[in-house]
C-alpha cells in the first residue's frame, strides 16, 4: 500500500468536491441571471445558484452512496456467483488474501466480447470488481490473476474513490451544460429577444457571454482535470499487481492480448472509460493531456523488465529504466517494502502449447538464419532476438522488454542451439525484429531494422536500438517508420495471408 497515494487520493477527492460546488453554484447563478428578466437579475441568480447547489448535493450523495450501482448499471454488468465463474471468484479471493483486504469485493461480469476490467466503490469495504466476458475467454489463469490484481491495486490505493467521485462529477457537469445549451436554444428566439429589447441589451449581453463560456469551458476543464490524473495510478496499480501476484508476466501478457484484440468495447460510456484496465477507446491512445492511460507498450515493457523480483522497488527500477523519466513514480518514504519479493513460477495450466505449423516454420527459418551467421539471444522475457551478422553494434536492446544484451557471434555453433531450443518460448510474430543486411551504402549511421507486419490487427513494435515503442494500426499502409527516439529506420515486410510471411528470410 502506498500511504502517500492514499492520502493524496482522499485529499484530492475533497478538493474536487469543493471545487465542483464552487463552479456549479457560480455557473448556476450566472445562468440564472442570463436567462431571467432584467428586472430581477439577482433574484434569478439566487434561484439559479440554489438550483445548482441542489444539483451539487444530489451529485455528492449519488457519487458517495450510489455511484457503484450507477456505474455498473451504465455498463450493464451483472453480479456473478461461484457456480457461474468458479475460476474468476477463486482468482479474486486469492488476490484478496494476497493484498490482505478486509472484505471480499463483489464481482460483476459484463457480457461484452472486448477484453477489459474495472473496479468501483468508495472504500475497500464496499468495492466491486467488474470484468468482461471477453477477458475471461481470452486470458488464462495467470493473466486473469494479473488483471484482477491490477484492479485490487486500484482499490487498495483508493483510486476508485477519487475516480468514482470524479466520474459522477464529470457526468453531471456535462448534463448541466447540456441543459443550459438546450434551454438557451429554446428561449433565445422568443424571450431573450424581447428581454434584450427591454433592457437595451446592456446587462444581459456580457452575462450571456460569460455563462456561455462557462458552459463551454466547464466540461473541457473537467475532462482535462479528470484525465490527467489517472496515468500515474495505472503504473502504481501495475506495480501492485506484480507485487501481489509475484508474477509480472501474467499482467504483461494479458495486456498484450488485450492490446491485440480487435474487438472494441461497445457498452462503455465515456465517463466510465478511465476505470478500465485498458482504455476502451483505442483510437485515443496518446500521451497527451487527454490520455487516461499510459501507452500499453510501455506498461508491458516495464512489467517484462522486472527480472530481479516482483517487489515495488523492482517495478520502480524497471519504470526508470524503460521510461527514462527522472521523476520517481513514488516518494522514497512510501516504499515500506521489507525483504526481497521473488518471482514465482507460472502456474500449471496453460504453460505449454502444441507446436503449430507456424511454429515449425519458424524453427526452420531459424535454422537458415543460424547457418547465415545470425546471432541468437534468448532474452529473460522469453523473446528470442535474432541479430543479423551485419548488425553494426555489439549491444542490442530487447524489443519486448528493453533489456540490453551484448551480441556475441557464435557462428555455426548456433545451429545446434536453435535445433535444441525449446519452441515453447512463444515469441509472438509481431515482436520479432530482424536486422537485415544494410551494407555501407546507407547515409549516416542510420540503422535499419526489419519488422514483420501482419495486416488486420493491432501490433506493437519497439525500436531495437532505443526501445521506443510503437503501436501500429491495422490500417497502417506504410513501408517504413523512422523512430522518433533515435532516428533509426524500421522497415516492414508484409506477411502474405495469415500463416505466411516467409519474406523475412530473404530480406
Amino acid at each position, binding site marked *: 500500500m502506498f500511504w502517500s497515494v492514499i492520502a493524496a487520493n482522499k485529499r484530492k477527492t475533497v478538493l474536487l468536491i469543493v471545487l465542483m460546488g464552487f463552479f456549479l453554484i457560480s455557473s448556476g447563478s450566472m445562468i440564472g441571471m442570463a436567462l431571467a428578466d432584467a428586472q430581477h437579475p439577482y433574484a434569478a441568480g439566487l434561484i439559479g445558484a440554489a438550483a445548482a447547489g441542489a444539483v451539487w448535493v444530489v451529485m455528492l450523495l449519488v457519487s458517495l452512496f450510489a455511484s457503484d450501482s450507477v456505474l455498473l448499471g451504465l455498463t450493464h454488468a451483472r453480479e456473478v456467483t461461484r457456480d457461474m465463474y468458479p475460476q474468476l471468484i477463486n482468482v479474486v479471493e486469492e488476490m484478496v488474501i494476497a493484498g490482505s483486504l478486509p472484505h471480499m469485493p463483489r464481482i460483476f461480469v459484463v457480457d461484452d466480447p472486448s477484453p477489459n476490467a474495472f473496479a468501483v466503490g468508495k472504500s475497500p469495504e464496499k468495492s466491486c470488481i467488474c470484468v468482461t466476458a471477453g477477458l475471461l475467454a481470452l486470458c488464462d489463469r495467470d493473466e486473469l490473476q494479473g488483471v484482477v490484481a491490477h484492479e485490487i491495486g486500484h482499490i487498495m490505493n483508493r483510486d476508485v474513490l477519487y475516480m468514482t467521485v470524479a466520474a459522477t462529477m464529470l457526468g453531471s457537469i456535462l448534463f448541466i451544460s447540456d441543459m443550459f445549451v438546450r434551454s438557451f436554444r429554446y428561449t433565445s428566439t422568443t424571450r431573450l429577444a424581447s428581454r434584450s429589447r427591454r433592457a437595451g441589451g446592456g446587462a444581459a449581453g456580457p452575462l450571456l457571454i460569460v455563462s456561455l463560456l462557462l458552459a463551454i469551458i466547464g466540461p473541457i476543464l473537467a475532462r482535462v482535470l479528470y484525465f490527467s490524473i489517472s496515468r500515474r495510478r495505472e503504473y502504481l496499480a501495475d506495480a501492485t499487481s506484480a507485487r501481489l501476484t509475484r508474477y509480472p508476466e501474467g499482467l504483461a501478457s494479458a495486456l498484450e492480448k488485450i492490446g491485440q484484440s480487435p474487438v472494441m468495447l461497445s457498452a462503455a460510456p465515456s465517463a466510465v472509460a478511465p476505470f478500465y484496465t485498458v482504455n476502451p477507446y483505442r483510437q485515443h491512445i496518446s500521451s497527451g493531456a487527454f490520455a487516461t492511460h499510459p501507452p500499453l507498450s510501455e506498461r508491458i515493457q516495464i512489467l517484462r523488465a522486472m527480472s530481479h523480483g516482483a517487489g515495488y522497488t523492482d517495478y520502480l527500477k524497471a519504470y526508470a529504466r524503460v521510461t527514462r523519466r527522472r521523476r520517481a513514480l513514488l516518494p522514497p518514504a512510501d516504499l515500506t517494502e*521489507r*525483504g526481497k519479493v521473488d518471482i514465482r513460477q507460472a502456474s*500449471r495450466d496453460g504453460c505449454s502449447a502444441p507446436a503449430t505449423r507456424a511454429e515449425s516454420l519458424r524453427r526452420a527459418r531459424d535454422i537458415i538464419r543460424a547457418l547465415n551467421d545470425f546471432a541468437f539471444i534468448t532474452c529473460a522475457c522469453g523473446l528470442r532476438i535474432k541479430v543479423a551478422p551485419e548488425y553494426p553494434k555489439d549491444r542490442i536492446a530487447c524489443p519486448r522488454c528493453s533489456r540490453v544484451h551484448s551480441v556475441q557471434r557464435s557462428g555455426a555453433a548456433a545451429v545446434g542451439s536453435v535445433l535444441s531450443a525449446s519452441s515453447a518460448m512463444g515469441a509472438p510474430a509481431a515482436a520479432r525484429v530482424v536486422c537485415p543486411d544494410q551494407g555501407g551504402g546507407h547515409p549516416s549511421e542510420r540503422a535499419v531494422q526489419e519488422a514483420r507486419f501482419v495486416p488486420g490487427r493491432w501490433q506493437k513494435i519497439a525500436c531495437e536500438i532505443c526501445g521506443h515503442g510503437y503501436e501500429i494500426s491495422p490500417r497502417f499502409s506504410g513501408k517504413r517508420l523512422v523512430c522518433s527516439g533515435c532516428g533509426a529506420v524500421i522497415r516492414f515486410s508484409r506477411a502474405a495471408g495469415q500463416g505466411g510471411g516467409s519474406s523475412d528470410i530473404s530480406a
Partner: protein
Amino acid sequence: MSAGTIVFIFLAVIAVAVLIYVVGAYNALVILRNQIKNAWSQIEVQLKRRHDLIPNLVEVAKGYMSHERQTLEAVTQARAKAAGAKSVSDISRAETALSGAIGQFLAVVENYPDLKANQNFLALQEELTTTENRIAFARQAYNDQVLFLNNKVEMFPSNIVAGMFGFRKGQFFELEEQSERAAPRVSFG
C-alpha cells in the same frame, strides 16, 4: 523558580515523553502480534481447505488410475501427516511433503486423458490450484508481518519495550525451497 524546580520539570517532561513512547511502542507490538495471529489463521484455513480437498481428489482419481496405487497412497499419507502436525516447523515440513506428493500425483495424471477430461476432476483441479495459490499468498502476507515484528523486537529502542513485556520473535512459515523445486513442472495441454 529555583534550580531544583527547573530540573524537576525537565525530568518530568522526559519521563512523560518516555512513557508516551513506551505506550506507543507496546501498542504497536500488540497490533503486530495480532496481525500475525490473524495471518496465521488465514494460512490454517487454507491448509484445512487443501486437506478437505484431497480425499475428493483421490476418490475421483481412483476409478481411473488403479495402477497408481502408490502415488495415491503417498498423497493420502502425506495428508494424514500434515493434518496431525502441531508446531509451525512441523507444519511447514509436513505441508512441504504434501505439496511434493500432490505434484507427483498431477504429473502422473498426465498419462490418463480420460481422467483429465472428467468434469469433476477439472473442477477439483481448479480448486487445488487456487488453494495452492492461496497458501502461497497467505504465507507471503504472514512472513511479511513476522519480518516486521522481528525487526521491531530486535532493533533499538523498541527492543527494550519488547524485552520488558516479553514479546518474542515470530517464526517464519517456510516451504522448503528444494522440494518446491523438485516438484515436477506439469503441463496440461
